[in-house]
């Protein structure tokens, strides 16, 4: 799969695509210090806050009607219509290992684009945009499986709060991988019938 080749980790650690932050006044004297920062979007999933590289975010929309697709991956909640294009909507709560909760008024769908694939992610809310210095990001995979930790590609340690940064490559791979496995489990289901 195409997204296996490059991990999206580069998105928030690498030099490319980041913004320059200017310290001091633009007229001259102290403009020496350029630091590359990368912007992230803060989002709520369940009870936690996660970050997502802004470069991967195409747009954020209100929750449209979602059409259930039978026999699809359990993490695909359904499909939505984005101005005539049909996109899958991933259930991020389920992916990150949270319980089913009430659909809040803050719920949004983040339309992400990664390696040419456009898809939606249902989140419980959007908080703010943060800029992080490379030094404020720690690339680290967390132990644990099935609790959503596997989709975390790094951690932000800005200030006192530690936030997980979502790795879209892993998220997509998981969904697609599940899709591939689906055919296998289908057989199993049939036997159970």
């Amino acid at each position, binding site marked *: 799969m195409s997204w296996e080749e490059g991990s999206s980790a580069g998105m928030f650690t690498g030099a490319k695509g980041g913004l320059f932050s200017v310290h001091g006044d633009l007229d001259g004297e102290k403009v020496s210090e350029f630091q590359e920062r990368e912007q992230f979007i803060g989002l709520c999933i369940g009870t936690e806050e996660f970050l997502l590289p802004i470069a991967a975010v195409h747009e954020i929309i209100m929750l449209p009607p979602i059409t259930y697709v039978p026999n*699809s991956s359990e993490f695909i909640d359904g499909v939505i219509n984005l101005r005539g294009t049909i996109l899958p909507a991933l259930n991020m709560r389920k992916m990150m290992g949270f319980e089913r909760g009430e659909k809040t008024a803050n719920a949004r769908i983040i339309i992400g684009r990664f390696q040419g694939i456009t*898809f939606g992610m249902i989140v419980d809310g959007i908080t703010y945009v943060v800029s992080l210095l490379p030094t404020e990001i720690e690339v680290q995979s967390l132990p644990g499986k099935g609790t959503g930790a596997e989709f975390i590609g790094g951690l932000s340690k800005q200030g006192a709060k530690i936030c997980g940064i979502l790795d879209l490559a892993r998220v997509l791979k998981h969904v697609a991988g599940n899709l591939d496995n689906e055919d296998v489990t289908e057989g199993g289901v049939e036997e159970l019938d």
Partner: protein
Amino acid sequence: MGMDAQISSAFATLAKKSLPELHAKLAQLAKKPASSRNPDDQLIALLAAAREHISILEGWANPASLQGEEPTLGDDASLDASANLDMSDEEASALLQSADSTAAPAELDDQDAEAAAMLEAMNAPADLGQVAATVRNALTEGDPENDPDALAMLAAMESAQVASAAPPAGDISDAEARAMLAAMDAPLTPKAASGEMSDAEARAMLEAMDAPLAAAGSDMSDAEARAMLAAMDAPVAASPKLTVAAAPMSAEEEALALLASMGGAEEDEGSSAAATPEQPPTHDASDHDSDGDSEHLEEIDEFAKNDFASDPDMLNDFVTNAAEIMETLDEKVLQLEQNPRDKETIESIFRAAHTLKGAGGMFGFKAVERVMHRMENLFDLVRKGTLIPDSNLIDVLFQGLDVLRTLLDAVKNGRPSGIPTVPICRSLELAIKGRYVKGSSPAAAPKAPPPVRAVAAPASTAAASHDGGGEERTAKKKNVEQSTIRVDLERLDALVNLVGELVIDRTRFATIEEDIRTTSPQLKVAGNMTETVQLFGRHMNEIHEIIMKIRMVPIGNAFNKFTRIVRDIGRQLDKEMELYIEGEATELDKTLVEQISDPLIHLIRNSCDHGIELPQVREAAGKKRSGLISLSARQEGNNIIITIQDDGKGLPADIIRRKAIEKGLITDDMILSKRDTFNLIFEPGFSTAEKVTNISGRGVGMDVVRKQISKLKGIIDLDSEPGKGTTTTIRLPLTLAIMQSLLIESQGEVFAVPLSTVVESVRIKPNEVQFVGDAEVIKRHDKVLPLMHLHDTLDLGRKSQSSWYSAKPQTEEMSRVAAMRLARRKDRLYVVIVGSGDRRFGIVVDQLLSQQEMVIKSLGPVMKKIPSVAGGAVLGNGEVVLVLDIQELEDRFRSRARSKVA
């Protein structure tokens, strides 16, 4: 004796190849001093000498090989010998001809003078040594510019001399021969069209040469030698004689290789040349109006770089035009076979051929131009009435068309096909004289022609059945052609897609309008809105209709080639069959027409191959000798129904059943209807079983056929009557771009069923459902249909657990409507009956909602493989609805039922 054979074969080789080459080069040399209009006397003498050389050798070789006589020197003697002997006559004249025609392309200004000189030289006896000396003299005195050429020639000349001396010693080695050839080959300049020779060809010749020579080393009878000579010199004429030869060994193969590399037009060239030996240089032109010289037909580059060819747009135009012309040619040539004297047909063929030739030439596709040119010559003769087309001629024409098609494909792909054009050119030229080469074209199978000619009647219904109507239609076609414009399909697709979106928008407007109208009918704006939306809707409908029509092409475009296929298979298998085509004017979406073609070819081939029996068998069974395959298309509502029907032997139900049980597709105790049994051959896996058995061969790739049809949102069904034939029915939607769908609802979920697959929707009482074991069935129109519950098959019960967000907000009104509906339907079941033929089944749904036009879209790369779902569509209210894949749904239903049984 053995020696004689060796000598003669060596000489034949020399006379045949080396010396004409030499001659060509000399001619070229003579041409070089461009400043002087008149060729150097010395060089003319040289030419003459070389010619003489050839005639001596040939005179020498022939009697030696045929009678073991003393070598006869001199022209008269040689001609005498030729007169007495069939073989040598041909050979001699062929050689003469070859020498002459080599001279012809040199285009000396003073042709008459040269010819005269040659004739003179021919009469003057000379020997090899003399010739060599003359050459040497000429060269030493000649222009220093020509040195490399001249030297090479000298070398060649000398080695020729050596070779000619060698045979008496019984010792001409391969190496020598090769060296000779190499020497002659090397100095070739590209300018000398006549002397041009590709490496590959040279190699082939060498190989061809080596083998007989090597063979000659062993003891050999005269007959063998003759056979070999014959094989070498005139393969066309020789092929019957070859079979007489005592030792065919590799000679036959060699002959074929030779034929491929140098071609065998000698026979006819020879016979005509023998009649008019006095005017050799002009002979070719006067004989037939081919400007190409058949003796010197050599493989040429397929493409020549040229400005036109490098312009992609121009090239694209050429390719499209060429494809169209080829189609026309195919069709018209078939018509010509039916109606050999039809002026209009041949005129249009001629025009088409001429256009293609011209275009090919303009773009520098030399091979296309060359083949087409020869076909055009043929067509011209037919047009003039000199030649009456018979099935042999048509065969040759089709071979030519096949080669052309390969060449044009190569043009399209941008790389040369490497297909040899010489054999076909030769066949075509022979055909002009009413002679036919069997097996010389790559398209023709090398086996003997079938004794029984198949009469494949092209049911281009126009020509066959009612002439008046046909003419009328052609006339109409012409008018259409005049006022058409070529549009890039991509642009058209974009337009169609956009119109599809507009159709959706219209539905949305209608919804809004309805909302306004019902909620606030007092508003003045509501009335305006209603009016506008209605108008918009009407215009939209018109646009939609027109845009759909733009994409429509008559299905006849796909049908036309079938006539040809049936004809070819018929000739191959010695079967007599007719193809009857009906409804070719039925219009269908262009992409569908393109994609339906392959499955149809498969089915037609099956009918020809396995359905229709041999004429004897048919007669024994009390049927007409010639089998009938009918292919028809008709429109039924939004569907196109294509049927392929043959009156052959039908399908063996029992064997299919046995095979299916062996393959584990069905169980022993399963009782299937006849049609269900037949349709088993569409199962994947069944085909592999079929390949090893020979019950009827049907089923090979039939699963692929079904897959392709279902990809086109169509349904295929098959029925057969043993001894009576087989009928295949294909049901296709008119277009894929926008399709009519039936919206249904099951457990709150809405799905779309392509209307092309829907037979009917019914409301039944629950007690009409009967249980047979586990299965639910209903009786409908005297047929038993299995029932499937959509929510069951699709596992809709898992929704609540797998989808957290998709529950639609239930407004109060909606739930009220739902409750009302529920109350009204009470003890009724809604069943959508889908499928075709006997392979129908019912889908039990909760509600039938509406019928809508929709544009099917893919669900994207993340979810491309969702079972039973063909794609999604956006409804007027902006919601996505899933479109069901009925075929997959049925497979799923049946496999679940099967696993339940197991």
